[in-house]
Every structure is written in structure tokens, then in C-alpha cells.
């Protein structure tokens, strides 16, 4: 059978050829370095086959930063196009592709991996565990995410990118209106990474429920752990709806079914409902963990315990439930009727209550504290006004009659960037600066970080404040250009200037990382506790040994590490020679990456509707699963002697 599509670089657009060439050059450069320095074995042993949660966490951070670059470039391309009326920098078709990939990448391949980086790097250390519940599955999660992201990214250069927004609404995305492989890329990329996300949710729920150190009762858990618990619950119950929405749309497209088509009884609104049943909880999946970060950062740099611990826990759990009851506020204008709209409007406003409780608690934590303005704290403090404004505009959007005015305007764009950048990205960066020394053994430079923060923070307001006004003036989202004389020109130019300031801010963050890496000996963290912080991970050396805890600590209260330090008994958590026993650890495995490669092949098969490729990919997936099932892999033991040696070398004994 003849394949439906051949992958060809779309159109004759010079930008895309430029991208083709630069991707080819970068790939060649990477391959050259790997061959020249004979680094293949190292890469395979240390990274590609690792099941160590700390390394997987680092892989997530790198992926998130790379994708933030790609998504940011998309953002700047769009802002450049909109800087002046009637520009022809991007054509309409190309603009559609850029905003679609921008939104998709930012949510799924920036925000999500930042969250998973936090999960992986911090949670096991914070609860006194040596790894997650299912380390092998954890590696599968990462590689499924990675190949999902890869699939979406190659769409730009082969076959054409999705162009129907990050929501990919039907019936616009049906074959009839959107032929070509672009939307298939979207559907398969999200499906692959979604499988990984679901597995991560299950993994961390079990980890937190079952792997805590003795004595760490639920109400002694650090708030980040609570936040990850809540986010995991949301992941587990929200992602299946996305899986179904994507699968049914794919069946429509490749098998000619009629779930969401205009004719033959299809119901396009069913897609919208399924998408947002996942989509609204998704925004809390990328927010709750950063709420957790702030709940660690504010107390650490205020020198006080967090204000209102129990109300923090209660509000997290309340949000995790209520987040499932709001989805229709994304389509008040669908015409569901006043009853439905009233309910969803009020429910959306109600979720502001637990969120507001948290903001007040963070402020009370700082109140009369001994505040240290470090990099993590700077991003955390910057978050508060962002979130207050984002919350206020959110309530405006939740008022259904008002939403008929703002719907799909730049007001909405400004609102969700306010919470997504101001919340998720600020929080992820706060977390990155905070736990960077734990990951790599050195802190990031303050001076360069400060410049990055201010460029970004000022750039942020300059970009998005004008957009609120533009929205109120009637400028709708997803338009590739606008005529002069609408009164929009100056505000758009201002917004573009702000976007470039943010771009500069991003470059400064990268520069900060490079600079600090070069000066890592001066920035070295020798204590393991560079911030004088509160939870168990800071009782370990930076970076912690492969097995984390030589002896699993016993917990007797909240903020155990802080309390021990205060009473001068921090040594209690150091291992003693006779307490050290052999440690059981999981084995590395190449199967997770191979398994995911086969899934990637399945993805490509569906994208281009090459049925033989799908069959080959699926056979590979099944074969790897069967091989794993019959494999006897019970892990290995690190002998007590070796652990003692290692602890001695770390100066802990």
C-alpha cells in the first residue's frame, strides 16, 4: 500500500530551511563530540539506562530548559509578527503553526517536565527514601516524555506542524478541514508523553504513601511532598480523559470515524468537554507542585516555620478535588445555558478561596521573619503580585456574562500567561535555584541571577500588561496580523519590546548556569545545606550519594532537620559504622529507552499513516514488555563495606 504522506520539509519557507540546517548542524556537532571523546559508553551507562531518580530529575531539567528555549523562540516570532500592523514576517499559515506548537510545548514539554524534575529530584530525598517505588517505570516515564517531545519537535521540519491551537478543537482538526500529518503529530506526541505522565502520577502516589521514613506521618510531611501527592492524584484521574480525547480524534482522522465530525451524527463539543476535563485539572498539575516549592522557600528564607501548615494541606487537597468541577469555564460561549454557566462560574470563583488561603499563609510566613533575599526567594516574592493579579483577572473571566466579552481575546492571553509564567515558571525557577546545589554540588551565581530576574520580571509586565488592554479593546487571540488605525499599534509594539526583555532574561539564566558551572569550585556547596533550610534532603551531602541515605533516618516531628540543628543535635542524622548495612538498589536497564523508541516508531507510523511501521513498532513494544516480564531482575546490593567507604570519603563518618 502506498504511504499517505512522504515527509517533506513544508513549503519553501526560508525559516524552515534555516531550521532544517541548524538542526542538522547541531546534531552533527553532538555526534562528533560523542565520537571524538568516545563518550558513548559513558552516556549509555550513566544516563540513557539510569533508573536513579536524581539523574532522571536532571534529565527533566535539561529537557525543560531546552524546550523553554524552543517555546520562547516561538513566542518571540509571534511577538515580532505582531509588533506592527500588516507585517509579513510570518504568513498566516505559519503563524497558526507557531502559536500551536508554542502553546503545546510550553504546557506539555516545559511546565510538565519542570514539575517532574521537582518530583524526582526532591521527593525521595525529602521523605527519607532511597528511590521511588518503581524506578524502572520512572525511566519509562522519562523516555516516553522525551520521545513525545521529539515527535512534536520534528513536525516543524518534516511534514508540517499542528496548526489548530494547543487545544486542537474538532471539527477544525478533522481530516476534512485539516489534511496532512500536522495534527497527527500533535495527537501522537501528547499520547506518548501522556502515558509517561500517568505512570509518574502512579509512581509518586505510591512512593509518598508507602516509602516514607519511619516516623514521618502524613502530617509531618513537608508541604512540597503534600503538593506532589495532590498533583499525583490529579494526574491519575485527569489524564485518562486526555487519552480518550486524543485517541477518538485520531480514530476519526485515520479511520474515518464520526466522533467529532460535523456530519453522520458526530458531536464536536464532546471533544471540547473531554479535552477540558483533563485541561483544567492540568493547570493545577503544573501549579500545585510550585505551591509546594513556595511553601519550602518562604519558610527557609524567612527563618520561620510555615504559617498555617494544616490549612496549607487542606487547601491543597481541596484544590485537587475542586479542580475537576470547573472545566466548562473554558467554553461559556458554547451555549450550554444559564444554569450550567452559573454553576461553572461560581465553582471557578470558589477555587479562589483555597488559593487565597495559601497566598495569605505565605505572606504571614514572611511577616516578622528574618528575610534573606536569595535567588529562590526573589522568584518566590516576584510570584506573589503576579498571582494576585492573575487571580483577580481569573475571577473576571469566571463571571460568565463578562466572559462573553473577554473570551478568546488578548485579555485571556494575558491572564493565563500571568498565572502560567508568574506561577509555574517563576516557581520552577525558584525551585531550580533552590535545589541546584543539591543536584550538582554548587550554587548558582547571585549577581547574574539577579540581572536575569529583573530583566525577566520587568519584561514580563511590559509584555503582558498591554495585552490586557488590547483584549479589552477588542483584539482577539490567534490573529496573525491586524490593520492600522485600530489603536492597537503602540500597545503591541510595547508588548513585543517586553517579550524581547524576557528573552534577554532567559539568556541571562543560561549564562548564569554556564558561568556558575565554570566557577563551580568557588561556588561549591561543602555543607550540603547551603541555605540553612529545613527538610531532610539538606541533611545529606550535595550531591547525595547514589543510595541517598546510608542509614534511613527516623523522624519525630515536622521540620526534623531544622529542629535538630536548632538544638545542636544535627549529628544524629550522620551514619555510624555499626548502623550501616548492605543497601538494596535497582539495576540500570536499557529497556525503558528501547521500549520508548518503539513507541516513537508507532507514533511516526500513525503520523504518516504507514501501517507497516505501526505494526513493527507495536511488535517491538510488546516484545520489550514480554522480555521484561520474564527477566529476573531483582536489583543488586551495595555491600556495607562499600557504603562505609563512601560515607568516609564524603566526610560523614
Amino acid at each position, binding site marked *: 500500500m502506498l504511504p499517505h504522506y512522504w515527509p517533506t520539509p513544508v513549503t519553501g519557507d526560508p525559516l524552515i530551511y534555516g531550521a532544517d540546517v541548524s538542526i542538522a548542524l547541531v546534531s552533527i556537532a553532538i555526534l562528533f563530540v560523542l565520537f571524538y571523546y568516545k563518550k558513548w559508553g559513558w552516556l549509555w551507562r550513566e544516563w540513557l539506562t539510569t533508573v536513579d531518580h536524581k539523574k532522571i530529575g536532571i534529565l527533566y531539567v535539561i529537557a525543560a530548559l531546552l524546550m523553554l528555549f524552543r517555546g520562547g523562540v516561538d513566542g518571540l516570532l509571534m511577538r515580532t509578527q505582531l509588533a506592527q500592523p500588516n507585517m509579513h514576517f510570518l504568513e498566516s499559515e505559519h503563524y497558526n503553526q507557531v502559536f500551536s506548537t508554542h502553546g503545546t510545548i510550553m504546557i506539555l514539554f516545559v511546565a510538565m517536565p519542570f514539575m517532574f524534575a521537582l518530583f524526582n529530584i526532591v521527593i525521595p530525598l525529602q521523605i527519607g527514601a532511597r528511590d521511588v517505588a518503581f524506578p524502572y517505570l520512572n525511566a519509562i516515564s522519562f523516555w516516553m516524555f522525551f520521545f513525545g517531545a521529539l515527535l512534536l519537535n520534528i513536525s516543524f521540519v518534516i511534514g508540517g506542524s499542528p496548526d489548530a491551537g494547543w487545544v486542537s478543537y474538532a471539527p477544525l482538526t478533522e481530516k476534512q478541514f485539516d489534511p496532512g500529518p500536522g495534527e497527527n503529530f500533535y495527537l501522537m506526541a501528547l499520547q506518548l508523553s501522556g502515558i509517561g505522565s500517568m505512570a509518574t502520577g502512579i509512581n509518586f502516589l505510591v512512593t509518598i*504513601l*508507602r516509602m516514607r521514613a519511619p516516623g514521618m506521618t502524613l502530617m509531618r510531611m513537608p508541604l512540597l511532598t503534600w503538593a506532589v501527592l495532590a498533583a499525583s492524584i490529579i494526574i491519575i484521574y485527569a489524564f*485518562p480523559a486526555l487519552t480518550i480525547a486524543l485517541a477518538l480524534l485520531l480514530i476519526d482522522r485515520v479511520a474515518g470515524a464520526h466522533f467529532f465530525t460535523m456530519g*453522520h451524527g458526530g*458531536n464536536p463539543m464532546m471533544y471540547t468537554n473531554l479535552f477540558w476535563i483533563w485541561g483544567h485539572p492540568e493547570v493545577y498539575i503544573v501549579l500545585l507542585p510550585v505551591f509546594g516549592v513556595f511553601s519550602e522557600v518562604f519558610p527557609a528564607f524567612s527563618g520561620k516555620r510555615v504559617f498555617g501548615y494544616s490549612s496549607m494541606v487542606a487547601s491543597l487537597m481541596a484544590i485537587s478535588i475542586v479542580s475537576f468541577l470547573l472545566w466548562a469555564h473554558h467554553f461559556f460561549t458554547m451555549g450550554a445555558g444559564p444554569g450550567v454557566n452559573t454553576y461553572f462560574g461560581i465553582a471557578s470563583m470558589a477555587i479562589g478561596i483555597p488559593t487565597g488561603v495559601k497566598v495569605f499563609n505565605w505572606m504571614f510566613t514572611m511577616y516578622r521573619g528574618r528575610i534573606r533575599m536569595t535567588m529562590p526567594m526573589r522568584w518566590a516574592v516576584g510570584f506573589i503580585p503576579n498571582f494576585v493579579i492573575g487571580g483577580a483577572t481569573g475571577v473576571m473571566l469566571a463571571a460568565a456574562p463578562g466572559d462573553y466579552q473577554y473570551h478568546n481575546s488578548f485579555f485571556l492571553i494575558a491572564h493565563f500567561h500571568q498565572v502560567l509564567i508568574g506561577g509555574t515558571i517563576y516557581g520552577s525557577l525558584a525551585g531550580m535555584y533552590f535545589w541546584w546545589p543539591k543536584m550538582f554540588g554548587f550554587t548558582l551565581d547571585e549577581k547574574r541571577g539577579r540581572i536575569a530576574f529583573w530583566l525577566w520580571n520587568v519584561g514580563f509586565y511590559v509584555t503582558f500588561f498591554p495585552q490586557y488592554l488590547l483584549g479589552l479593546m477588542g483584539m482577539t487571540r490567534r490573529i496573525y496580523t491586524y490593520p492600522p488605525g485600530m489603536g492597537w499599534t503602540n500597545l503591541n509594539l510595547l508588548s513585543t519590546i517586553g517579550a524581547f526583555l524576557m528573552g534577554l532574561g532567559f539568556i541571562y539564566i543560561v549564562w548564569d548556569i554556564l558561568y556558575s558551572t565554570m566557577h563551580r569550585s568557588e561556588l561549591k556547596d561543602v555543607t550540603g545545606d547551603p541555605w540553612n533550610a529545613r527538610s531532610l534532603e539538606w541533611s545529606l551531602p550535595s550531591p547525595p550519594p547514589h543510595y541517598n541515605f546510608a542509614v534511613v533516618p527516623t523522624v519525630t516531628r515536622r521540620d526534623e532537620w531544622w529542629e535538630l540543628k536548632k538544638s545542636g543535635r544535627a549529628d544524629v542524622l550522620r551514619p555510624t559504622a555499626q548502623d550501616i548495612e548492605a543497601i538494596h538498589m535497582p539495576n540500570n536497564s536499557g529497556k525503558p529507552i528501547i521500549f520508548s523508541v518503539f513507541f516513537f516508531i508507532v507514533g511516526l507510523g500513525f503520523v504518516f499513516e504507514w501501517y507497516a511501521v505501526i505494526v513493527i513498532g507495536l511488535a517491538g513494544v510488546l516484545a520489550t514488555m514480554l522480555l521484561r516480564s520474564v527477566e529476573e531482575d531483582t536489583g543488586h546490593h551495595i555491600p556495607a563495606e562499600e557504603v562505609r567507604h563512601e560515607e568516609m570519603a564524603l566526610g560523614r563518618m
Partner: protein
Amino acid sequence: MAVSNKDLSGVLARGQSAGHSHDENELRVAGFWIFLSTDMILFACLFATYLVLRGNTDAGPTPQQIFDVRGFTEETFILLTSSFTCGLATHAMHEGRRGGLITWLSITALLGLSFVGLEVSEFVHDVGVGATMQRSAFLSAFFTLVGTHGLHVSIGILWMISIMYQILKRGINATTARKLTIVGLYWHFLDVVWVFLFTVVYLMGVM
């Protein structure tokens, strides 16, 4: 080759320890329960879609016209029986009887296979009379919902075969016992889903 009940209760026990347990088998059973709850939501979304689209037959075949009471009743009996035989296999495992275990599990897999066979022949018949997935939204939803269940059953059969191979090779031990427990959970879950399918799709369809 017997295995004491104590070993197995370690495999099967849940939730006894105060948040601190590193028994890998126990962790996996707990994880699998959570996985099943995600699978349940997956089916719930498919059911919701089916219910929304059920009446949209686009003047094509209706449920009354294509559902064959005898066929789906047979399927139901076969699958319910297989759940029972799967339970017997687990029982044999608890008593350490490998032969009984393999016999009952083989019967379960064979029943599963005949279930899938009947379903495939139902689909082939439907397509033969022009009731294809491309015909109407109702049929798209019908084939997808029932087919997803059938796919789950097929995967379950492959999985059982792999576990039988492992038990024949290595006997009943904590690991293989855990695997059998998990595939048993999966199989009973599919049975419950089928009860809903039977009621919501078939019974409500022909009534």
C-alpha cells in the same frame, strides 16, 4: 513445590504498615490497584461518549437492528465463567498446587480466547451488513468502546500465557505469585467492565 501462606500474605497484604514498607511485591500490587482506577476512568470516558452518541445513528443501523441477543449473552456467560476459573487458579496458587494453577489458568485463557473470537465474529457480521465504524457516530462509539474492552482482554490472554510460562519454569514463589495476583485483578476488572457494557450497551440497546 509449596509456598507457605505466610509468604503469600506478605504478597497480598495491603496497608498494614505505618507508611513505611519496602516490600516490592506489595508495592506493585498497590500500584496496580491505582493503575486499574485510571483504566476505570478511561472506560468511564468511553461510556460517556457512547451515551452521548448512542442515538446519533444518522438513519443507519440502530442498536436493535445489529445487536444479537444470543451472541452477547454467550459472550457474557463465557467471560463470567472465565472470571470464576481465574479465581480457581488463584486458589490453587494459595494451596501451592502448580498443576491446578496451570490447568485453571489455561482454561481461563481459552475462555478468553473464545470470547474474543465471538466478538470478532460479531464485528465481522456487523461490517458485512454495512454497519461499519464509518457509517455513523453511534457505530464509531460502539466499535471503539466494545473494541477497547476486547483489546484489553486480548492483552490479558497474552499476559496469562507469559505468566504460565514463568510459573512452569520457576514454580510458585513470591514473585510469580504476585504476578498471578495482578493478572487476576486485571481479569476480574475486565469482567466488571463487561457487566457495564452488557447493561449499558447491549441490554439498553435492545430494549
